[in-house]
């Protein structure tokens, strides 16, 4: 029914040329330090090492994340933590004054921003500001150009937030963060995917695997799992870590955690909408169990997709927030 043969032939051709290149490299005794040591398999050590080299979340951001989960934290408390990090404070003020939030007057202090926009919104701004640089880079392997992963991540954050509303999930700001960070593992795994892309694509084509399953089959790791490791390294809360680690295969021990289900479906929505698509394209599977967990059906998904388009259009100031987020390097986080 589907005419795949020409693509398979192409994939095989690419696989052969990549195989030849690898043999040549091995013969020359020059293994790239980032590249796969044996075949295309990636060692656990190299992943751990790469995760260690990712910029850490600024301590102020970690502190805010813990604070906003506690009852009895005041806007003043949050503002004072943010004010300890000048670069972060400057970026939050710029974001708060962007057209997206439509505040009636310019906000001059972080505590005004917290009062007017709410602690959780400001917390999300802080995380967005802290991860923007990492998520905006070009990601080789996935063929994500500069800014593509950021667009996909932000769209997924908005979609997860919107789904949380639709499904009456109480922590919709939690959903935003999980959506924003769900693909962070691609930043680390990208270089390995690049080295083995022909093999991965071949497995996708010939064995009917999703891209993630093919990553795992070829490399021994997939980007969701690596993302989970990054979340753990950043000391993010456990449900957030799980949502990142399981966003493609949300079923764990026979059930799907609500936050994981939100991120899973939000990601699918963004693939359908085509926001920041990479080489993995739409080679992903929608989990019926995730839909059931949230009490949603296919019609709901379509309605949310229609609304998401609108929300993304509204949020354009955030999508083009490069200038807002890449603050002057006055203070270090």
């Amino acid at each position, binding site marked *: 029914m589907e*005419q795949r043969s020409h693509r398979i032939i192409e994939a095989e051709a690419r696989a052969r040329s990549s195989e030849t290149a690898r043999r040549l490299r091995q013969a020359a005794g020059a293994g790239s330090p980032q590249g796969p040591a044996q075949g295309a398999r990636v060692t656990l050590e190299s992943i751990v090492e790469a995760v260690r080299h990712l910029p850490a979340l600024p301590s102020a951001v970690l502190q805010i994340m813990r604070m906003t989960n506690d009852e009895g934290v005041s806007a003043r408390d949050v503002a004072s933590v943010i004010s300890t990090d000048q670069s972060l404070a400057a970026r939050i003020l710029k974001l708060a004054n962007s057209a997206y939030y439509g505040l009636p007057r310019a906000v001059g202090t972080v505590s005004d921003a917290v009062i007017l926009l709410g602690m959780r919104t400001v917390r999300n701004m802080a995380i967005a500001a802290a991860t923007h640089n990492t998520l905006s880079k070009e990601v080789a392997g996935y063929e994500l150009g500069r800014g593509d992963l950021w667009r996909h991540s932000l769209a997924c954050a908005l979609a997860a937030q919107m789904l949380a509303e639709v499904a009456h999930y109480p922590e919709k700001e939690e959903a935003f963060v999980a959506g924003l960070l769900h693909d962070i593992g691609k930043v680390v795994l990208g270089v390995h995917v690049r080295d083995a892309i022909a093999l991965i694509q071949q497995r996708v084509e010939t064995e009917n695997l999703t891209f993630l399953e093919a990553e795992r089959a070829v490399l021994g790791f997939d980007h969701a799992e690596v993302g989970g490791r990054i979340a753990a390294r950043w000391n993010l809360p456990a449900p957030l870590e799980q949502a990142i680690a399981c966003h493609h295969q949300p079923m764990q021990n026979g059930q799907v955690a609500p936050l994981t289900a939100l991120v899973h479906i939000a990601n699918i929505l963004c693939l359908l909408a085509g926001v920041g698509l990479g080489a993995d394209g739409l080679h992903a599977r929608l989990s019926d169990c995730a839909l059931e967990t949230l009490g949603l059906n296919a019609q709901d998904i379509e309605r949310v997709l*229609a609304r998401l*388009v609108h929300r993304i259009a509204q949020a354009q100031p955030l999508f083009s927030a490069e200038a807002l987020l890449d603050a002057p390097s006055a203070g270090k986080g």
Partner: protein
Amino acid sequence: MVGMAEVKVTRSPEDVLIALGLGSCIGVCAYDAQARVAGLAHVVLPNSAGHEPSPGKFADTAIPLLLQEMIKLGAVVERIRVALAGGAQLFASGGQGTRLEIGSRNAAAVQAELSKRNLCILAADLGGSVGRTVNLYANGCVRVKTIGQGERELVSLADREVPAGMPGAGSIRIPGSPAAAGPPGKTGPGPVRDAEKRAVFEQEARRNAWSSDRIG
């Protein structure tokens, strides 16, 4: 740049209309070679069910809007030719996973709207599970970039010779189109056009994930 649910038209020769990032959405590229009017609709869903304020989002409302805007710039419906790209599907195997079928339903809805108006689809790059970006140049040239697989010219929607030096200019002749024919509007829908259509579809089908009978 034509964002999701947007419809844009142009008559200026330097313009390129771009639908960046098509998943299950469809980029409907339309061109009147005589009036040199180009239009692109970035369709998201098949059906508005009559209660949606944003007409560009749905196939049943976006196609009329696209034509209307092109006519405002001097296009004539009978001369307009169309190329489609996008309509990808979620991957599914062995009955696992809901596929939603938004991509294929989008494609069917767009084609139904076009055939209602006897509009000629010269080429289509639809289906599969890949992301695409489609560019429509003001000379009628349509280029599709498939993420991870590179870029190619899908078709030229211009009947006449395109000026040299433009991207992709003159590299494709529309199969079966008589070189010395008058303006395409005078040909009208008929056996010649149907043959053209079939020929391009057959050519495209070899490169595409969908078979030609499913498209046509």
